[in-house]
C-alpha cells in the first residue's frame, strides 16, 4: 500500500473531494521527509560525538538514555528553549532570513534522494543530479547574508571564507558527479542506480566505483569541504573565528544552521552512495532479501563514517592551501577523470 492509496482511502472515508488527494500526498511526503531529516541529524550528531570520542579513546556521550541515545534530543530541547537574541546593531530582517535560506535548500535536496526502489523517492526528477548541484549551491547566499547581517567581524570573515570555499569546491564536486552521469547516460538518480545493476563474472557488482576510484576520491574531498568537516572547516575554524558566520546566532536560528549542516552531510553521503556505490542495489543478488532501503542507508552510513573518520584524523588546512588544493589539484584531476570516463564509455 503506497502513501497515495492510504490518503485516498482516508479522504473517501472522511468525504473529502478527491482533488485534494494530490496536494495532501505531497504535504504528507514533505512532513515525513522533514521528520526523517530531523531524526537523521539528531543521530548524526550523536554518531559524530561517539566516533570522535572513540577515536580519542574516550567513551563519548553515554549518560542520557540507553547508551546516551537521548543525549542529542536533550541537547535539541535545550537549544530550542534558549533565548533567541538579535544583536542591537544587526540588520534585523536579513539576520532572521539567513538561517531559513540556509536550511530550506538543505531540506529541498531530499526530494530526489532515492531511498529505495520505485516509490521510495519523493519525486524522481529527470534532471536529478543537476537539481542537486543547483540546490546545494543556494545555502551560500544565506551564509553570506548571515555574516553580513550579524555586524560582527568574525561572522563576516567566516562568511567570506565560506563563500570562497563553497564556491571553489562546488566545481570539483560537480565535475566528480559528471562521470557517473556519462556512464549511465541519464541525470535521473533512479536511472543511474539501474545502470549499475548486474555483476562482472557473476560476483563483483557493476558499481561505478570500479572505474571511478579517482572520481570518488575527488568527490570525497569536495564533500568534506562542502559539509564543512575538519580538514576544510576554515569557515568556522573555532580557534581563529569564534564560530564563523553563526557567531551571533542562538536558539532556534542557530539550530537551523546546525540542522542544515548535518542534513547536508547526509545528503552528500547519500548522493555519493548513489553515484558510486549503486544506491539501494544489493552487493550481490543473493542478498536481495534485505530491503533496498536498508542497503541504501547502510551504504550512506559507511560513507558518513568515513567522513567523520577523516574529520577526526586530519588537522585543518590553511586558507591558501585550501584554495590551491581545490583549483590546482582537484579540478585538473576531475577533468582528467572525465576524459578517462569518456574513453571508458567509448570502449564499452
Amino acid at each position, binding site marked *: 500500500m503506497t502513501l497515495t492509496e492510504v490518503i485516498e482511502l482516508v479522504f473517501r472515508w472522511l468525504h473529502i473531494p478527491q482533488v485534494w488527494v494530490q496536494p495532501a500526498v505531497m504535504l504528507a511526503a514533505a512532513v515525513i521527509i522533514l521528520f526523517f531529516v530531523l531524526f537523521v541529524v539528531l543521530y548524526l550528531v550523536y554518531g559524530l560525538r561517539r566516533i570522535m570520542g572513540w577515536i580519542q579513546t574516550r567513551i563519548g556521550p553515554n549518560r542520557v538514555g540507553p547508551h546516551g541515545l537521548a543525549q542529542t534530543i536533550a541537547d535539541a530541547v535545550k537549544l530550542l528553549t534558549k533565548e533567541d537574541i538579535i544583536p542591537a546593531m544587526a540588520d534585523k530582517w536579513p539576520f532572521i532570513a539567513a538561517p531559513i535560506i540556509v536550511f530550506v535548500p538543505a531540506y529541498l535536496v531530499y526530494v530526489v534522494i532515492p531511498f529505495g526502489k520505485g516509490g521510495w523517492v519523493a519525486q524522481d526528477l529527470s534532471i536529478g543530479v543537476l537539481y542537486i548541484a543547483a540546490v546545494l549551491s543556494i545555502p551560500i547566499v544565506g551564509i553570506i547574508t548571515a555574516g553580513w547581517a550579524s555586524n560582527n567581524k568574525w561572522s563576516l570573515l567566516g562568511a567570506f571564507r565560506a563563500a570562497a570555499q563553497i564556491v571553489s569546491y562546488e566545481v570539483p564536486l560537480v565535475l566528480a558527479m559528471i562521470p557517473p552521469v556519462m556512464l549511465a547516460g541519464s541525470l535521473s538518480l533512479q536511472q543511474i542506480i539501474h545502470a549499475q545493476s548486474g555483476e562482472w563474472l557473476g560476483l563483483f557488482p557493476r558499481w561505478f566505483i570500479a572505474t571511478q576510484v579517482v572520481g570518488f576520491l575527488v568527490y570525497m574531498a569536495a564533500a568534506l569541504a562542502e559539509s564543512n568537516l575538519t580538514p576544510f572547516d576554515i569557515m568556522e575554524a573555532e580557534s581563529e573565528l569564534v564560530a564563523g558566520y553563526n557567531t551571533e546566532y542562538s536558539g532556534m536560528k542557530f539550530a537551523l544552521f546546525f540542522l542544515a549542516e548535518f542534513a547536508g552531510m547526509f545528503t552528500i553521503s547519500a548522493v555519493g552512495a548513489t553515484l558510486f556505490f549503486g544506491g539501494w542495489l544489493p552487493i550481490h543478488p543473493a542478498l536481495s532479501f534485505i530491503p533496498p532501503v536498508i542497503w541504501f542507508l547502510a551504504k550512506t552510513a559507511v560513507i558518513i563514517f568515513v567522513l567523520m573518520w577523516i574529520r577526526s*584524523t586530519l588537522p585543518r588546512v590553511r586558507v591558501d592551501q585550501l584554495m590551491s588544493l581545490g583549483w590546482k589539484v582537484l579540478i585538473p584531476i576531475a577533468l582528467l577523470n572525465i576524459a578517462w570516463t569518456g574513453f571508458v564509455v567509448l570502449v564499452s
Partner: protein
Amino acid sequence: MSKALRKIGAYTCEGFYALYSIAKGLIVTLINLLRGKVTLMYPEARWELPEGYRGFPALPVDPETGQDVCIGCGACARICPTQLIAVEAHMTEDKKRVVDSFVMNAGLCMFCGLCADVCPVGAIIMSDNYELSAFSRDDLIYDRRKLNELGGLRKPEPKPEEPVASGSAEERA
C-alpha cells in the same frame, strides 16, 4: 620539455605521498577507535590506587589501645609547608605529654607527605582518601576524631631507626 615532465612527475609523487600519509593517519585513528577506552566511569568505577598513594593525612587508631599514638611533639606542625596542622599539648605533673587537640585544615593541604615522614612514632599516615569535597569550609577542618575515623584501625608500624642528624650521639657529646 624534459624539465616540465620532471616537474609534473615530482608534483604527482607529492600527491601520492600526501595520499599515503593520509592513509597512515587514518590507520592510526582506526587503531585508536578499536582500542580500550581510558575514560573511567567515575562514581561507579573507581581508580585502583597504587601502593604508597598520598591521600589526605590521617591518624589511624591502634586496635590495642583504641587510640592513636600521637605524642603531641608538634614535629608535623613545624614541618608542614602550609602550616595547616595545629597541635596543642600540655605536660602533666609526672612529666607526660597529653595531646589536647590535633586539627588539620584540608583546604590547605598539598599532600606532600612531610608530616607522615617526620612523625617520630608513625602516628600520621597518608590515607587513601582523595574525595575531600565539602559544602562548607568548616567541613574541611579535620579534628582528631575525624582524623581517627579517616585513618581507621591500623597497628602503627615502628619507624626504622634513622638518625635525624649525621654522626652518633657520643661523637656530638
